[in-house]
């Protein structure tokens, strides 16, 4: 399991997303699927910055990347912000007109729609949110472990 620990700051969004993209590229995900996962990951990351550490000075955000034995990848987000369980939220009404429609509420919706499994637990002072994503069949073994030009 590879773990990336970053300050919960928007300047680190590209650092995280590039790392994630690289992790996904080493596995047989399509470009479309990679982008879907990236969207969900961005929403979770941005919410931690925006809400979890709203009342605190920005803390750390710990991101883990893991391939399970049963052909899934798991991406785990850990923060020490206010307790928040996105799996228990009600979804926004996506059928309102343009003037009624409020800006917002879509981040959690996208997370739910884009991943195959979502679980939350609180452990001590940590929020632990885990994306579970099915790996498609396919063999890109020859791109694994390949190093790249500087």
């Amino acid at each position, binding site marked *: 399991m590879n773990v990336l620990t970053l300050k919960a700051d*928007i300047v680190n969004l590209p650092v995280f997303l590039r790392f994630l993209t690289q992790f996904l590229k080493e596995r047989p995900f399509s470009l479309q699927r990679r*982008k879907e996962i990236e969207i969900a990951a961005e929403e979770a990351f*941005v919410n931690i910055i925006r809400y979890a550490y709203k009342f605190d000075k920005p803390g750390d955000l710990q991101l883990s990347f893991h391939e399970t034995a049963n052909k899934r990848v798991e991406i785990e987000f850990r923060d020490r912000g206010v307790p928040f369980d996105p799996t228990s939220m009600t979804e926004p009404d996506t059928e309102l007109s*343009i003037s009624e429609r409020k800006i917002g509420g*879509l981040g959690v919706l996208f997370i739910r729609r884009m991943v195959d499994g979502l679980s939350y637990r609180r452990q001590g002072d940590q929020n632990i949110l885990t994306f579970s994503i099915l790996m498609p069949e396919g063999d890109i073994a020859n791109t694994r472990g390949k190093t790249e030009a500087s």
Partner: protein
Amino acid sequence: MEITKRKEDNFSVLSVSGRLDAVTSPELEKELLSIIAEGEKSLVLDLAKLDYISSAGLRAVLAGAKKIKQQQGTLRLACLKGVVKEVFEVSGFDSIIPCFETAESALKAGS
């Protein structure tokens, strides 16, 4: 993210390429609101070359759509595809903002 602008018929057509994420989207929102503040009433957003959009990008588009509506103008979307199309569908934004297959059809459509 890059925005290119052109005038066609009575419309301003904004082509957005690259990525609309939490880092880049505020720039689009600023651009949209400033064009509308200058009096533009007919806008087409051509998203053919947009590779990626998150809720931050939708937020920018919706902010523009709301603003132009207040001034009795219209904003139309063109060329949604791939994950961009999916994001508009999941959010339901594709049914509150008119979407067209091509920039041409967006320009030619009646109001």
